[in-house]
């Protein structure tokens, strides 16, 4: 029977080892593409890693490596703290059919002693693990998905009926950066449905009020406020800050058409929602992958046929339903999971308690996203939405 020392030296004869200097060359080489695989325990990993490394604790190596590294020809540098565990791991990987595996002699300890680059791993902190635990339990989200949400940037147009529930749920979910565009102030008539605001915020700017509520809900979220109305003049600046998804909770047609054109040109998906009395509409308008708002509605109805909630009223909870669906779709887009509402318009009727779906298709003749676009710069959206009669 072999002792541990004998076994280790026997294994080291069967595998290839590199020293830290050779390792750092592999790390620097662009063409090498070596994958650094850290086989230490979680607490060791948490304290510092080789930049770009992936983590599989030694005990989980056999069961997890094929999922993480499907390519058996991939060049792999295995490391642990001192070079022993990684030697055994390298042997195991060879036995599993990995063809280009080396163990980092001296391990992370020697690497650090040489002053080679290290970094802190991307992982959730203890508080985040607790806060997002119900997300971590879902295979489709998990730690990787949660980190992705924390890296995500979602822009909300409007902090009103739809923007209230959408911003609250996106913030609670841990979307790292939320942008809020709203030039309005909190009014008493808003509070029947705009749950991100409160009585004590009356008169306060909605964007600021929403920011305060969100920051109190989740300190992980950075809120960027834009206390302005979306216009042809500022839309490129605001969208140009780089957003993964836009949630459209505007309350007027000129903003919705402006946002549509801008999002097509910026290539940012829009989760559209609109509400009136007891009914709502939701869809995902994803440039290049479905219709845009103009494909759906080439012309808005004239103002007298399209009363706003201020004119026609709305059941207070209705935006709660529609805005929450918008938040759901935005999270799916940010995570890259599921079947987004692209090419489908979901209609909700609260009185009959029914959902209906209709099919939407991209219009090849669409003036903005069609094959031969005729609108290629911002137009006067107020005039456009006033209808043909405005020209008479």
């Amino acid at each position, binding site marked *: 029977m072999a002792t541990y020392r004998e076994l280790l030296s026997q294994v080291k004869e069967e595998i290839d080892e590199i020293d830290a200097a050779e390792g750092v060359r592999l790390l620097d080489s662009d063409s090498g593409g070596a994958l650094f695989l850290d086989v230490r325990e979680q607490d060791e990993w948490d304290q510092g890693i080789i930049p770009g490394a992936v983590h599989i604790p030694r005990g989980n190596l056999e069961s997890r490596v094929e999922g993480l590294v499907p390519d058996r020809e991939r060049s792999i540098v295995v490391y642990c703290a001192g070079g022993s565990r990684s030697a055994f791991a390298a042997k195991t990987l060879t036995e599993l059919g990995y063809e280009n595996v080396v163990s980092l002699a001296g391990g992370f300890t020697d690497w650090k002693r040489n002053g080679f680059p290290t970094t802190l791993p991307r992982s959730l902190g203890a508080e985040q693990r607790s806060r997002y635990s119900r997300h971590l339990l879902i295979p489709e989200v998990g730690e990787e998905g949660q980190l992705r949400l924390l890296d995500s940037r979602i822009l909300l147009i*409007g902090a*009103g*009926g*739809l*923007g209230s529930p959408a911003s609250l749920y996106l913030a609670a979910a841990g979307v790292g950066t939320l942008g809020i565009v709203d030039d309005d102030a909190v009014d008493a008539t808003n509070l029947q449905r705009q749950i991100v605001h409160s009585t004590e915020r009356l008169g306060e700017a909605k964007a600021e009020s929403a920011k305060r509520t969100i920051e109190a809900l989740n300190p992980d979220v950075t809120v960027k406020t834009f206390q302005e109305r979306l216009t042809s003049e500022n839309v490129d600046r605001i969208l140009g800050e780089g957003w993964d998804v836009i949630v*459209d*909770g*505007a*309350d*007027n*047609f000129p903003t*919705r058409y402006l946002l549509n054109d801008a999002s097509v040109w910026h290539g940012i998906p829009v989760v559209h*929602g*609109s*509400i*009136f*009395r*007891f*009914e*709502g*509409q939701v869809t995902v308008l994803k440039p290049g992958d479905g219709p845009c708002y103009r494909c*759906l*509605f080439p*012309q*808005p*109805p*004239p103002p007298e*046929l*399209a*009363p*706003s*909630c201020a004119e*026609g009223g*709305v059941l207070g909870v209705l*935006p709660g339903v529609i805005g929450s669906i918008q938040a759901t779709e935005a999270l799916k887009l940010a995570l890259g999971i599921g079947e987004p509402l692209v090419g489908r*318009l979901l*209609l909700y009727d609260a*009185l*009959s308690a029914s959902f*209906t*779906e*209709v*099919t*939407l*298709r991209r*219009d090849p003749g669409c003036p903005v996203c069609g094959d031969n676009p005729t609108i290629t710069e911002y137009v006067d959206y107020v005039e456009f939405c006033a209808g043909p009669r405005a020209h008479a």
Partner: protein
Amino acid sequence: MTRVRIPPTLRAAVGGEREVPASGATVGELLDDLTARFPGLEGQLQFANVYVDGEDIRTLDELETPVREGATVILLPAMAGG
């Protein structure tokens, strides 16, 4: 007879009904029947998309789109509210 879903903004023109029956073998006939009985709809239908069994008639045969017995027809204008 086909039941046509009326959007909230057009309901005043049909006596407040959420759904009204209409007859016609095509969408055009159906809408003509509606406007004949509800003159208030005149000039308003052009702003509504028409879906027959979930498909936009613009992707079918427009007003010539046949409407089978028991089909679901939805009139849907854009809504601004948020």
